[in-house]
Each structure stands twice: as C-alpha cells, then as structure tokens.
C-alpha cells in the first residue's frame, strides 16, 4: 500500500497550505492519505504506526527529513519511505504566495508518489574483519600507535625501516621536543612494546579492502611476509631537509657553515671557549612551521646559555609556546628580522651581510660559524609508499587527509590512516595525539564485523563494456577491476552514485534511483505543474543531499522567502547528476536547471563538487552548440552557513 501522511506541524502549516486541496489532488496517487497534527510527537507516531504493515510504502509530507527522519526511523521498520519537506521548503518560504505554495506541495507530493513506485529496499552487507593492524612506523608516532593498539588487545605488526634503534628514533625526532622529554617518552613506550611483533623491512604491496587488506612485507634479509590486516596506520615520519638558501649561505663550500642540528650535536654540553659568534640564517623564503620555530628557539636558547653569541636572522617567528621565544631572548639571543644576503669567508671568519628590515639598512657581522636550521618534511619514501597504498599526497609531499577540519587521520582510502609527521610536522604531544587518533579509527574498523546498509550501485555485467569510466570516477575506491569485470566493494562504498553518472552504457544503476525513475519523476513534476500552474515557468534544483539540501532547509529555518516554481530534487551527491538528467529536465519543460553542490573542495564524497561543475560546463557547451541558451543550466554551491546564497540564486532563475 502506498500511504501519505501529511503533518500540519501543530496546526500551523494549514494556515499556509490548503490541505483540503492537496488531499483532493493527490488522492488518486496514494491508497491512503492522512493529515496528522504532530507527526513527530508520540501521538503522531502512534497514528502513523496504526495499521502499518512492513511493506507499506510511505510518503511523509512534513518538516525536513533531517528532523522528522530520526524519530521516524527509530520507530518504524519500513524501508520504503520518502520525505517531502513541506515546512522548510514550501510553507515557511512561500508565505506570500499561498496558492502557488499549495500547488508546489502537490507537485512535490506527486513526485514523491513516483519516487515510491521506483523505490527498492536497501541492500545490507556484513563483512568479516581481521583483528590485526599494520603500523608502518618511522618514528615516535608509530611506536605510540603500536603500543596503544597492543594495549587494546589488537594484534599489531610494527614495520620499521632497517637499522632502527633508540638512537635513530631520537635523531629523527629531535625537532619535536626537548631531548629529555623525548628520551623519557621513548623509553616509556618501548617498554610496552616488548610483546609486539616488530618487523624490519619495507612495505611491498597491498590488495583488498578495509577490514581485510592483504599486505606483502619485504624483510631486510630477503624474507617476505604476506599477512592480512584489518587496517593500516602509516606513520612514516619526517626527515630534515636543507632549505634552498643553504647553498647561497655557502653550505657545503665552507667548513664554517653547518646545519644547526649538527652544530648542536658537535657542541654537546660544551661551554663556549671564548665569545664565539654564531649566525643562524633562517631561509627567508620558506616560512617556518611552528615545530621548526620551536626547535630553532630551543636550540638557540641552549647555545646562548652556554655562552655563545647567537644572532638569528629570520622572518616570522612561529611557535606554539610564546615562552620559548621569551626564554630565547632572555638568554641573550639576538633576533634580526631580515635576510642574509651575502657571506664571504676570510681567515677571520665569515663576513655576513644582513638586510635588516626593522632598521631599513644593511648590517655586516663577522661570525665564526653560520648555522642553518633545517626544514622538516616527509621522509623521501612517503611518495612511493602513498603510491603503493593508493592514498593521495599533498603538494608538499605529505599524506593528504580526507577532510582537514574534522577527520585528522583518514587518508583518501578507507581503512588506511596516517599518524604523526607523515601528515605534517608535529610537536611531540601533537604526534602522540595523532597516533591515538589513528589507533581509535583503526580500532573502530577491526573491533567488529562491518555492517552496512544502503542503496548501492548494481552492476549489470552483460551491459558493461569494462570501459573503466566508473573506476576513474569513484572517489572511494569502491569499484575494482577483477577478472575483467567491474566489482563493487561495499565496504568502501559511500552510496554517492558518482559511478552511475560516469557510465556510458547504463551498466551501473543505483538502487531506487534508476534512470527511468528520474525521468518519471521529472515528468510527473512537469505535468502536475502544468496542470496546476499552467504556463508559469518552473525550474529544477538538483541538490546534493549534504550541504546543498541543508542550505535549502536553512533558508527555511531562517525564514528567507523566495518564489515558487523551483522544484528541489535531491540527489545523494551532486556528482551523480549527469548531462542526461539535466537535459531531461530541460526537455520536460524546465526553464532552468541548477545543480547545487557542496562548497569547492568540501564535497562529503571528495569529488562531487568538482565533478558536477565539470558536468554542467560540459552540458552548457553542448547546449551552446545545439543552439540553446547555456545560461539555462547552472552549477552553484550552497552551504548551510550561507542560506541567503540559496535564496538569491534560486528564485532569480525560477
């Protein structure tokens, strides 16, 4: 049975919408039409449940699905439910045009009816996972991750580069913290690692998916190991680099020019013999990270307290701890904001010329030594490693995380996490926190079988040409080529539907969102609109169900008024919209089609915003060629923080 429940939202919506007319118009489309006062409250939900059988199809015309969806889903077992946001997207935003608003409600409800006809039950998966995690550690974050996982009772393999020992761990982590803290931390972790399997060697290759990755490891003495892991943590760490300016500072040409760290280890605990002057030249063109800044301040402070005269030539001083800067100055370090422009060597020492920006003049100083602070970057192997793992790197060579704001350790591939300096240079405490983050995520992957449920892309092998367009398009590695077939990996799928828009042959169809269903829905909207509104033009807004739809809801919450005549069709992701849907929208008679996606770079599925921009520009090119006005098709982004953008952009084209 197809049932429609309309909610008056505490009797307020029927002041805005003519429910009698709505009921009359949609009577033919649904088997049951009921108007309820407060559907989201106990009494409303009871009414809803009454006489409901599990295979009933339901349309709910009420507030935004995001509000009513939760209590409804927690209460009823039906899968085949669609929501029509009569409150946020109709009643509240078309206060001025009551009749048209009612008509819009009818159009949307007839669309919902068609949608229900095409709706399929979501597919459920359960996949077993391997309770074992691989940690690729180059430094202290890797050790921490392995130790915490071990304490959580998860089996761990710690893969370490050859020749790794405490000495080397200290050396590679020297910039993270002061040495004593580092040593204490290292010793504490090493103690808990006694029972952890440690493997010396390199990473070979990986196949499989989150929950069960097959990994080949190559040992230093030629042994090879193939193991299955539920999750992988990349903690390949950092390495120090010479800045570009080093050559100009005569590094490598003069024995008096050395790196700051080598100087520190050379002068270990020694007091200055006489007043020897050390000039520390920071690369003016490469801004410091806070970690590098703090390390610079700690090092120079230590040298100055031992009696050396330290002159630091720098640009912006960056540090997490203002007191370090204060201490460095207190200990007598001289800071010059500017740039070392020339270094000449003679028997007396190094004559360094400095452009002092704070005096607007040049200074010359004779230094006994010039020290160059090194930059911290990813280890050399990171790019290769990332390539083997199939994860992305950023343009500095660090491993990119999926969403820099909220997801600190997720790489672009599910089940693979990044910890510590491989993501970006970090102080000791940040690196530890980062390792804990990775442990938490890995633990969540391996602790229980993976169960997922949703509408998935279904692949028809008969129809498939194996053109691999879907593989290229899928942002989540959820489609793979196996034995000349395209195979769906549900563990990685985010149900975004981007693959569907890429397929030329229609070998992939998305459950409940098959092409015919879109077409039928557009036609239903167009015919109902024409029947009710006559020749008044109308438009489609193809909105992604994340930011764009939230923004449209937000416009409702904020009471932003806009004209009727635009119909929002929700897509799982704007990347699922292909030129076909857009053109179909125009063919059924829409004046405009607007594709609304998440903000640039902010797609919840990684690439949908960019892809939909491409699809729209491509469609516009086609329209221009065939003599249609390309302006009829637009792409735009909408975010919940900017409801007025939606208000501005939709009605203009309505």
């Amino acid at each position, binding site marked *: 049975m197809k049932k429609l429940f309309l909610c008056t939202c505490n009797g307020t919506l029927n002041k805005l919408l003519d429910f009698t007319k709505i009921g009359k118009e949609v009577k033919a489309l649904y088997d049951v039409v009921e108007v309820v006062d407060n559907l989201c409250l106990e009494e409303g939900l009871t009414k809803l449940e009454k006489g409901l059988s599990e295979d009933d199809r339901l349309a709910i015309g009420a507030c935004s699905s995001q509000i009513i969806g939760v209590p409804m889903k927690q209460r009823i077992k039906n899968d085949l439910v669609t929501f029509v946001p009569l409150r946020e997207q109709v009643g509240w935003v078309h206060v001025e045009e009551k009749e048209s608003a009612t008509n819009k409600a009818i159009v949307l409800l007839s669309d919902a009816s068609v949608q229900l006809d095409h709706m399929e039950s979501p597919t459920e998966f359960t996949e077993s996972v391997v309770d074992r995690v691989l940690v690729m550690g180059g430094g202290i974050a890797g050790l921490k991750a392995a130790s915490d996982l071990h304490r959580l009772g998860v089996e761990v393999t710690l893969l370490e580069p050859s020749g790794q020992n405490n000495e080397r761990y200290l050396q*590679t982590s020297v910039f993270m913290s002061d040495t004593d803290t580092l040593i204490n931390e290292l010793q504490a972790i090493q103690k808990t690692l006694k029972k952890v399997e440690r493997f010396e060697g390199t990473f070979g290759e990986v196949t499989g998916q989150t929950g069960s990755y097959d990994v080949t490891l190559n040992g230093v003495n030629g042994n090879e190991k193939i193991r299955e892991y539920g999750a992988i943590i990349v903690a390949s760490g950092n390495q120090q680099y010479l800045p570009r300016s080093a050559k100009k500072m005569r590094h490598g040409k003069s024995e008096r020019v050395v790196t700051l760290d080598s100087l520190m280890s050379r002068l270990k605990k020694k007091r200055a013999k006489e*007043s020897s002057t050390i000039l520390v030249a920071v690369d003016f063109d490469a801004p410091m990270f806070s970690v590098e800044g703090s390390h610079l301040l700690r090092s120079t402070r230590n040298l100055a307290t031992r009696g050396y*005269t330290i*002159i630091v030539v720098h640009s912006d001083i960056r540090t997490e701890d203002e007191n370090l*800067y204060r201490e460095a100055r207190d200990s007598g370090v001289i800071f010059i904001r500017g740039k070392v422009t020339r270094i000449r060597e003679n028997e007396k020492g190094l004559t360094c010329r400095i452009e002092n920006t704070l005096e607007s003049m040049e200074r*010359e*100083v004779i230094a006994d030594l010039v020290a160059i602070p090194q930059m911290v970057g990813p280890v050399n192997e990171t790019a290769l490693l990332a390539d083997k793992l199939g994860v992305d790197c950023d343009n500095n060579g660090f491993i990119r995380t999926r969403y820099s704001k909220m997801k600190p350790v997720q790489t672009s591939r599910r089940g693979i996490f990044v910890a510590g300096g491989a993501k970006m240079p970090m102080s000791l405490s940040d690196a530890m926190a980062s390792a804990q983050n990775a442990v938490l995520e890995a633990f969540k992957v391996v602790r229980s079988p993976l169960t997922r449920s949703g509408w998935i892309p279904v692949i028809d092998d008969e129809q498939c040409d194996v053109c691999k367009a879907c593989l290229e398009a899928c942002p989540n590695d959820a489609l793979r080529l196996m034995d000349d077939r395209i195979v769906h990996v549900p563990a990685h799928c985010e149900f975004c539907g981007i693959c569907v828009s890429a397929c030329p042959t229609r070998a992939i169809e998305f459950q409940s969102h098959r092409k015919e269903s879109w077409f039928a829905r557009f036609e239903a909207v167009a015919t109902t609109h024409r029947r009710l509104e006559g020749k008044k033009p109308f438009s489609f807004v193809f909105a992604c169900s994340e930011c764009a739809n939230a923004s449209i809801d937000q416009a409702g919450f904020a009471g932003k008024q806009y004209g009727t005549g635009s119909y929002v069709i929700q897509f799982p992701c704007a990347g699922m919209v292909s030129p076909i849907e857009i053109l179909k929208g125009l063919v059924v008679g829409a004046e405009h089609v607007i594709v609304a996606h998440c903000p640039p770079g902010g797609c919840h599925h990684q690439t949908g915003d960019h892809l939909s921009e491409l699809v729209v520009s491509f469609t516009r090119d086609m329209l221009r060629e065939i003599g249609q006005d390309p302006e009829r098709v637009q792409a735009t982004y909408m975010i919940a923080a900017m409801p007025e953008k939606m208000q501005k952009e939709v009605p203009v084209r309505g």
Partner: protein
Amino acid sequence: MNIDSLNTSRFLRNDFKPRLARCELIAVTPTSISSDLEFRNWILKQPEGETLLRCYQCGRCTSACPIAEIDHSFNPRLFLEKVILADESLAENQLIWTCLTCEQCEVRCPEHVKIPQILILAKVRGLVSGNTPETALDRARSILSQGRTIQVSEPMLKTRDKMGLPSLGNPPVKQLAKALKELGLAEKLENIKSIYGGDGDE
C-alpha cells in the same frame, strides 16, 4: 643521516613571499656589528638594562610616543634595535636627548622593557663624547658646586617659607665633590664640551 645527499628540491614552500620589497635601504655601505657587542653588553650590565633583552620590536613604543607623533625621526623602537645590535652611534645621536622621559612607552611595552632607562643609559654613554646639551652639563656642574641641579635663590626660599614648606637644608656638597673627584668625574665634567655648542638654553 647525511642531509647533504637528500633531495631538497621536492620539499619546497615557495607559496609564501615575505615582504622585503618595501625596505628602502638607507645606508649604502653596510654598518658592521661589533663582534664584542660592547655597547649592548654594557647596557645589559647597568641597572634595569637587562630588560632590553625582552624587546621583540613590536613598535608599540613608537606609536605610543608623544614625541614621535610630532617628530617622525624620533623612534624609540629603532633606538632599541640599535642598542640590541650594539650600535654605539646611538649614543652620539642628538635625538635621544629629545626624550621627555614621560614613560608612556614603558607603560605600554608588552614585554616590560624599561625604555626610558635604557635611553638614559645611552645618554650616559654619550656624555663622554660630548653628546649632551649644555644645560644638562650645567645641571651636573651645579651638583658639583651646590649639590643640587637647580640653583636655589632667595625669593624661592621666601616663597617656600610663606607656603609653610619645610626648610631645604644643606646638601653635603663637600662629600659629593670629594666622591665625584675620586671617581674622576669632576675632572671630566670640567673638560666636556657639548657638541651642541651655543649657550645650551633650550
């Protein structure tokens, strides 16, 4: 780890261009920073001189300074930078005598640098080479002769009497003169000639 062998070109942060273009270089030949930093170290050893170390050149002193508001060449921050870099030319700079010692800068200084005190120390250094207005020298000589910076006149004493103020008493001129003589200052004061010349009455 041999860092020289590392690939340095891969890891570049060429996305950032700090501003140096606006720096108009005033001096044609660079000024040397003395390797013993004598001037700076001397200042640091004087009372409250070590507060100099805290200076991070934020420039708040200059924007707070009432003199700088009128005379744009008077720049306390720049003076501090010169002291930090042990540039003794500051001690010979007549501008430092423009300071009113109003202590606006000291009150505002986010790092509690005793700026007026440091300027006073710089003035002291300048004394020897004659960077002193004649009036200041007169005051000093007046201490030597009377124990006071200001000459006390009869009418002044009368006025004080009228106002019921206590008697000034007699400063220990002899001891002062003796002490200054022992330090060699008395002799110096005799010989110092102000480079400002003139009668020195500002």
